[in-house]
Each structure stands twice: as structure tokens, then as C-alpha cells.
């Protein structure tokens, strides 16, 4: 039995390492625990938000987190369709003086910032990291929101060099660009260097005039009918100057807003936990008698927010998030390709098994478009190639079988795109489909022949030769991802090319590399997509406006004088004004027709979302408009009792016993052998 002395040593070693390993695991800070009976809404994201600073939050995940804590002057009506703006921080609709291009906003008087250390007199002029824990714990009541906060917030959006959102105001407000020029230069890289930067906010901006504590006027430099939509993005959120100066660049991690929730904890890669803000004003769920709003009727008139706590769990992989959803630990879930097959019937309906589990389905079209943009400066496929280039673009477009792509690559989660504006938006025409975007292989080959290419072959195997070079025509499409699904898509494009004789090569790269190639204009074609920022077709049509050429957002470098002229005319028309709306629609149609003629893009699809939710969760009426509205979580409802019953689970005895036996029996036998050897 001498060697059994080794056992305590080995056990000790493991224990020592285990302790060593666990001690540093206390790196992240834990969120507070939910109280019994709290309505807890658990949702998931695949990654952390980039920022919870509304003036830096450009992506959907960040904007949604900002929407929990920050508010804008207006918000999208939760129930009304089509999308409609209603006052949020503003008391009423703005007054607009067309002659002076001036908006006058009146603010609600009962809006307060959340209680925070930054409002404490002793915190003024201090940086939070220089204060002790005790000092930081000494919070003060949040103050009343005033027009100065709105003025400050517009200035801040302009002044931050790392704000991705200034594009919504660039060149639009009188004096703001000049303010930005100086402010960005004063911005240091640390709080200590920012003294002058903070002080510079006292400099007046001619286009921002505080009339009284609750009234502000904004003077535009040119007509900007999308202005209200633009400032309803998180970039238009009200930030308190005290908070921005106390937390400096770290405001992103210490949000202080007027919204319905307060950040309780953010543990990167794990979760973000929000709790109800006690200082949130009285706001109630909107009412409606419309029959299509029956699902929300029990909630109408209830005080917001409806949930006590919102937990965003960071779950990167599709399987665990779906399993957590099935176990009732997430209120809603999207579906990847495999999960879609598992949960849905061939008629795109939820299976009986899922329905019996209390799971429900909703589907809606997102205001997005997926397209392939050609580089119009390319010598083969672009403008320099003349008719031949146009023929290649048109042939590619005719050869793209959108229905097949949506069925096989997207499980039916999409609609073929035959025009540039997504369904549900002003500027989408139900009876219109660009001729150039219709799937027709014969026509594709004919277009190539007409342009002088030699097209030979049969079935699915064709060769298109350029007589000028005597070689098969090759086109390269660049992709912004190297994921397996992109590889499958590359094969799809490759096969598509074979059917019309084009050799389509695909370059899969990281997003950074993709952006670089796009900016440099070194690619032939780019697989791209766009999520609309607001419900105005201008947001989509700007992607082909000549002056937006790379490094701007017109990655196709499309330049057409007629298009540019009509776009400029269309962009300043307000779709909310009936007499302008008609003209605007006419111009949008004309722009589509130019695109139909020039084919700078192959339009692929408008993405359709299929999402599952538990019946104890009342989801939003998700249609396009809500994709722009990031403040809607306050309207979400969870039946706390029903939710807790679903997530309670019992473990069966036998599977565990059998598995344990399979592991322990051989180990035991070997241990027995060791003991035998000893004797």
C-alpha cells in the first residue's frame, strides 16, 4: 500500500490548482438578484454592444441598449402602421417654419435624469476614476431635463471625433459644422486632456437656440425632411452634460439617461442587466380599438415599463441560445437554418410539437436589402466597358435565381427584390418589378450575345468568350465574411455563372479587408446589404448618389447625372406632406427606372424574419417600423408566474446513472488492478 501515499498528493495538487483557478475568476462583477415575483424579460444577443453611449452607438445591438436608458425627442408609435412619430421627450409635434427652416420643439416638464453620482455637487469637475468607491457611492437625485440638454446633446454628437452618427446632422444645422471643426481638435485622448474640450461646449451655435428652459429652436441650413427621423435615431438622444463630463469617454459604460431602465451590470461576453428606473416619468401603453391590436389590449393603459428587469444574455452560438429558449430561459429566439427546419413545416408554419409547448411564431419583413454592387469604374463590368459592361451586369442580374436562393440558402426567409425600396416603406411599389432583375437565363445569354460576346454550351454548362481577348469572361465577387454560409453562397454564384458562361470567382475576406477594398475601389463586385435607418426611401437611394462615391457609401461608384439630379430633387421632399408625397413617389419611380436601365446592382432579396416566442411573452407588433425604433422594450410584457413554471425542470435518474456507470466501472476495475498489484 506504499504507493497509495501518492493519492493525497495528487488530490492536493488538483485542489491547489482548482483554488488557484477559481480565485481570479471573480474578474467580472455580478448583477443584483431579481426579487421574487419580478417580471424578468430575458433576451439574448450574440455579442456585446459596441457602446452604450447614444452618440457613438451606430449598430443595432448598441442602439437597442441605448434605447433602454436614453430617450429622443420623438419615438415611433408602438402600434400605428405605417410608421409614425409621436412625442417622447417633446411635449407635442414640432412647429416648423418653412421660410426660416426652423423647428421649434417644446419639451415635457416632468422628465428627470436617473439618480447618479454625476449630479452630486461634490462630483462637479471630477473624473469618476479619480474618486474613491465611497465617494462614488454618494449619488444625487437626477435633475430635470431642459432645452439646454438637447442643445448640449446635438453639440456633443458633433464634437466627438469617434461618433459614428454625425452623418445625420453633417451640413444640416447652421453653425454646427463650424463648432465641430474646433471641438474635434480640442478632444484629447484622456479625461485629463479634455478640460478645454468640455469648456468649448459653452460656445454658442447659431442654429441651436434655447428659447426658455423647455423650448429649443433648431435652424437648418437647407431643407431636410428626414430631420425628425434622423434625430429619433439614438444619435438624437438627450445626454446630461454632468454625466458626459464626469464619466468622460467611459460614459459608454456608465449610461445616465431619462429612460425607463437603469444599467445594473454589464459583464462583457456574459450579460447586460437592466432594472426599472424609479425616476422614470408616468408614461402609459398606447390605446387602440383596432381589431388587429387585440393581442395588446390587456396591456393598454398600463404604466411603462411593463417589465421590472431586462436581462440580455450574450450567447454566441446558435445551439445554446435555442436550447435556452426551448427551456423557457429566453423569451424569444430567432432561428438558424437547422432550427428553422426543426421548428417549421414545409408550409412555413410552426410544427404542432412546438405549438403544444406554448411556442408561437411571428414573421415580418425587415427594412433591409441584400444586393451585389458592381464597381462602375471597373474596365470589364463598369462604365469604361460601355455596352459590354452593361450587358455583363444585366446578364448577371437575369441569371440570379432569387427564388431558388431564398429557398435553398435562406429557408424561404426572404422576398425577391425587384426594386430598391423594401416593402412597407413609402416608395415601395407593389406592382413594380425591374425588368433587369427578372430571372431569365435565355435572356441573360441573349443580352451577352447582343453585346458581342460568344456564348456557347448547353444545359448548365456554358462558356462566354470575349472575342477581344479570346478568353472566357471572369468576374470576381467580394464577400465580407468567411463563414460557411458565405462559402455556400459563393458556390451558388459560381454555378449561376456557369449557366450563362461566366467564370465567377469569389473572394471571401474579413470585414476590415472588405471595407478597404471597397474604399479603394479595387473590387469588381461586392456582395453587400443595407439596413434602413429611417422609413424614407431617400435612405436607400443615397447609396447610388454620385457624390457618395467611395470612400462614401456609394460602393458601386455609380455616377449618372440624371439620377443625381432627380435624387437631389427627391431628397428634399417630405413624404409626410401630402402634396410633396405624390411628387416624391414619382421621382422614386424614375430613379428605379434609371437603375433598371444601368443595372449597377443585382438586387437579391428583402430579408424576412421568422421569430419564435413563448406565449407568456407578448411581443411587439414587429413590422418594418419597429426596426428603427430602439425604445420599444418598455412595451414588452412577461407573465412572470407562467415564465417561471416553464423554466423549472427535473432531471431523470436513469440516463445519468448509466453514463456515470460507463465512466466509473472501467476506472474502478483499473483501481482494483492497482490494488492487486500492490499485494
Amino acid at each position, binding site marked *: 500500500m*506504499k*504507493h497509495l501515499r501518492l493519492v493525497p498528493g495528487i488530490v492536493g495538487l*488538483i485542489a491547489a*490548482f*482548482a483554488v*488557484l*483557478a*477559481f480565485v*481570479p*475568476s*471573480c*474578474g*467580472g462583477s455580478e448583477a443584483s438578484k431579481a426579487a421574487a415575483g419580478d417580471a424578468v424579460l430575458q433576451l439574448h444577443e450574440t455579442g*456585446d454592444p*459596441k457602446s452604450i453611449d447614444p452618440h*457613438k452607438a*451606430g*449598430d443595432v445591438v448598441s442602439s437597442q441598449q441605448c434605447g433602454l436608458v436614453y430617450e429622443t425627442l420623438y419615438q415611433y408609435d408602438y402600434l400605428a402602421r405605417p410608421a409614425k412619430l409621436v412625442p417622447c421627450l417633446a411635449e407635442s409635434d414640432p412647429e416648423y417654419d418653412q421660410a426660416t427652416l426652423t423647428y421649434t420643439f417644446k419639451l415635457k416638464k416632468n422628465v428627470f435624469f436617473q439618480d447618479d453620482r454625476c449630479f452630486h455637487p461634490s462630483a462637479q469637475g471630477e473624473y469618476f476614476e479619480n474618486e474613491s468607491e465611497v465617494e462614488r457611492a454618494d449619488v444625487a437625485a437626477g435633475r430635470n431635463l431642459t432645452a439646454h440638454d438637447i442643445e448640449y446633446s446635438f453639440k456633443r454628437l458633433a464634437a466627438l471625433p*469617434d*461618433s*459614428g452618427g*454625425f*452623418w445625420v446632422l*453633417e*451640413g444640416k444645422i447652421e453653425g454646427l459644422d463650424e463648432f*465641430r*471643426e474646433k471641438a*474635434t481638435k480640442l*478632444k484629447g485622448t484622456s479625461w485629463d486632456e479634455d478640460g478645454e474640450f468640455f469648456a468649448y461646449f459653452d460656445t454658442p451655435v447659431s442654429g441651436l437656440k434655447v428659447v426658455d428652459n423647455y423650448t429649443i429652436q433648431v435652424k437648418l441650413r437647407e431643407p431636410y425632411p428626414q430631420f425628425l427621423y434622423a434625430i429619433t435615431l439614438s444619435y438624437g438622444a438627450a445626454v446630461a452634460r454632468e454625466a458626459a463630463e464626469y464619466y468622460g*469617454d467611459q460614459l459608454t*459604460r456608465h449610461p445616465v439617461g431619462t429612460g425607463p431602465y437603469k444599467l445594473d451590470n454589464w*459583464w*462583457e*461576453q*456574459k450579460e447586460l442587466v437592466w432594472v426599472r428606473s424609479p425616476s422614470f416619468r408616468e408614461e402609459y401603453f398606447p390605446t387602440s380599438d383596432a381589431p388587429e391590436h387585440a393581442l395588446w389590449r390587456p396591456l393598454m393603459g398600463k404604466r411603462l415599463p411593463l417589465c421590472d428587469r431586462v436581462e440580455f*444574455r450574450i*450567447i*454566441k*452560438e446558435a*445551439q*445554446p441560445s435555442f*436550447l435556452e429558449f426551448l427551456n423557457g430561459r429566453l423569451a424569444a429566439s430567432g432561428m438558424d437554418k437547422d432550427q428553422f427546419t426543426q421548428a417549421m413545416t414545409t408550409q412555413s408554419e410552426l410544427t404542432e410539437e412546438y405549438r403544444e409547448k406554448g411556442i408561437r411564431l411571428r414573421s415580418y419583413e425587415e427594412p433591409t436589402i441584400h444586393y451585389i454592387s458592381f464597381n462602375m469604374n471597373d474596365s470589364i463590368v463598369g462604365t469604361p466597358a460601355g455596352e459590354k459592361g452593361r450587358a455583363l451586369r444585366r446578364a448577371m442580374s437575369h441569371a440570379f435565381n432569387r427564388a431558388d436562393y431564398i429557398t435553398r440558402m435562406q429557408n424561404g426567409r426572404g422576398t425577391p427584390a425587384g426594386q430598391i425600396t423594401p416593402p412597407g416603406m413609402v416608395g415601395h411599389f407593389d406592382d413594380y418589378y425591374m425588368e433587369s432583375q427578372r430571372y431569365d437565363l435565355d435572356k441573360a445569354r441573349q443580352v451577352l450575345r447582343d453585346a458581342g460576346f460568344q456564348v456557347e454550351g448547353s444545359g448548365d454548362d456554358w462558356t462566354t468568350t470575349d472575342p477581344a481577348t479570346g478568353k472566357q469572361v471572369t468576374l470576381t465577387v467580394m464577400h465580407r465574411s468567411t463563414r460557411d454560409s458565405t462559402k455556400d453562397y459563393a458556390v451558388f454564384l459560381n454555378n449561376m455563372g456557369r449557366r450563362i458562361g461566366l467564370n465567377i470567382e469569389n473572394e471571401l475576406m*474579413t*470585414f476590415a*479587408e472588405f*471595407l*478597404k477594398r471597397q*474604399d479603394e475601389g479595387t473590387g469588381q463586385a461586392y456582395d453587400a446589404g443595407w439596413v434602413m*435607418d429611417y422609413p424614407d426611401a431617400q435612405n436607400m437611394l443615397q447609396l447610388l448618389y454620385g457624390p457618395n462615391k467611395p*470612400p*462614401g*457609401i456609394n460602393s458601386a461608384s455609380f455616377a449618372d447625372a440624371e439620377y443625381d439630379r432627380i435624387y437631389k430633387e427627391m431628397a428634399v421632399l417630405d413624404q409626410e406632406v401630402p402634396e410633396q408625397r405624390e411628387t416624391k413617389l414619382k421621382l422614386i419611380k424614375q430613379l428605379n427606372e434609371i437603375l433598371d436601365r444601368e443595372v449597377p446592382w443585382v438586387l437579391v432579396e428583402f430579408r424576412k424574419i421568422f421569430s419564435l416566442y413563448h406565449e407568456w411573452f407578448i411581443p411587439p407588433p414587429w413590422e418594418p417600423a419597429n426596426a428603427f425604433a430602439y425604445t420599444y422594450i418598455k412595451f414588452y410584457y412577461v407573465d412572470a408566474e407562467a415564465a417561471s413554471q416553464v423554466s423549472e425542470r*427535473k*432531471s431523470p435518474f436513469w440516463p*445519468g446513472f448509466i*453514463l456515470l456507470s460507463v465512466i466509473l466501472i*472501467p476506472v474502478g476495475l483499473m483501481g482494483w*488492478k*492497482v490494488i492487486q*498489484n500492490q499485494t
Partner: protein
Amino acid sequence: MFAYVLRRVLYMPLILFGVILLTFTLFYMVASPDALAKMKLGEKATRLQVLDWQENQGYITWTDDGLEKRQATQRMSTAEAKEVVFVDGTDYESRSWLGLFGSYVGSVLTFDFGNDRTDKPVSERLWEGLGPSLSLTLPAFLISELVGVFFGLFAAMYRQSRIDHTIVISAIILMSFNGIALIMFGQKFLAADWAYFPVHGFEAGFQALRFLILPIILYLIITLGEKVRFNRIVMLDEVDQDYVRTARSKGANENTVLFKHVLRNSLIPLITRWTVAIASLYVGSLVLESFFGIPGLGSLTIDAIANNDVNVIRAIVILGAISFMIANLLSDVLYAVVDPRVRLE
């Protein structure tokens, strides 16, 4: 030995410099200042916003002509302003490669890797992620190595017996399973369907244990087959040696032969493997962390790659290079410790 260790330590800065040069070149090519600005500001950022950001980060400096042009654009309409092109060399001066490289070297030497994409200092993220990663990989590594050595020894001692055949066949079966499939299977049945473990998540301190058991078991299953086979081969080289026969002829029982003589003499190849493995423990197990929601460095790395968080990727690469340099030095020293015949000169 001291001279040898000192020499190796002195080589380290040179190797590190090589790594820094290589990573700088690679990252500069993949993520140019323009691309970095776009990643930070979003695709919708205008050219002027990109240039303002670059100036703030020290990548460019405006020239007087550029500033004048910039001011002139503010008097134009938005459409006219968009037509204005800012030219490198005329309107602004890009910072030289050498200058950028100098800043990069400085940041590596001071472990100041800047902020991650959420504006948190990278060094803080690394420190916070280290604990969860080690709490998964260290126990998993130790247990799997102990079990692997135990089974390897046993198979070697009883070679060509039923015990050996059973161990070898079991090892081959384990090696044949796809790791991802095993993780998905374990997560679905053991966690989601039968509820023996949580499906996903993590908590600080000892609360983490219940979230770690399943990933550790899966790590063990995924890696055990290969370890047992490797160890068995290493041990087989030893069991026929003269010293083993001598030990037996002196009357030592099989356990003494196994654990005292064979194991000790097999340590050199094992140390080589362990040191390399230990050096990469800090990144945890990339896939396991990602699947089970352990907020460690593996998960951070995957997140950084997915989001082009260049500062984090750089830091992880540098940290990896340093770890491997230390691990290599450690393995050389350990060779001399476990085998008196090894002399480090």
C-alpha cells in the same frame, strides 16, 4: 545552467521584436487607418468624419491648405460638400510607418494595447478574462493529463492483453468523435434535455463550478483518446528497458515499477507536450467557452475576430508569443531537472 537560462532570456527581446514587427505589418495591412476608422465610426461615416477620427488618433495631420478647404466645405450645401476630395500629401499628411511602428512598440512594452471596441482598456479585458479561462482549462488540463497518464501507463504495462486492447480501442473511438458534435450532443442531452447541468452561463467565484463541470467533462472526453495513445507509446518505449527488468528482479511490485520507474523516465516527452499546452491554457478552450458562455479569453478572442477588434487580437497574439517563449524556456529547464543526463550549456 544559469548561463544558458540567461542567454535564453536575453534572446527573448529579439524574438519579441520580431513578433511585434510581424504583427504590426500584418495588422497594418489588414486594418489600415481608413478601415479602422470605418470600423469605429460605422460604414455611414463621411470622409470628413474618417479624417477627423484619424487626426484625433494621430494617424494624420491637417495641412494649412487642408484646413482652409475643410472650412470652405462648411459654407457649401451638403451635396456640394460631398464633391470635395481631401488628398493625402496636399490636404493632410499621413503619419509615417516608422512613427506608427514606434508608437506600437511603445504600447506593447507598456502593455497599453489601447481600448477594445467597447472602449474598455484591453489590458483590463485580458485580466478579467484570464480567471474564467483558467478556471476551465486548468482543472480540465490537469484532470485529463492525470487520467491520460494513468490509462497510458496501464495500457503499456498490460500491452497485448485485454486491458490494453480495451484502452486502445476506447481511445480510438474517442478520437473518432468530432469535438463540436460531442459538445453539441452533451449540451443538448446532459444540459438541456436532462438538466444535469446548466446549458449556458457563468458566475463569479465558486458559483462558477456548476457551470464548469460539463465543459470540463467534455474537454476530458475530447482530448483523452489522443493523450492515452500518446502516453501509451511513450511508456511502451520504457517498459522494455533494462532498468525495468532490474527493478522487477529486485522484487519491486508492479505499482512501484509503473509509478516510480517507468513514469519518471517517460517525463521528457510529456514535459514537452505539457509546456506547449500550458502556454495556450490562458486562451481557454475557444469552442467550449463560446458554447457554454464562459466569459474568458477564448471567448474574447472569438468575439474580437468576429468584430475585427484589432487591439484585442494584437494583444492576444503578443500575449501568446510571450507565453510560448516562457514555456519553451521552462521546458528546457525542466528537462534538466527530471533527467540528470541533460546538461544545459
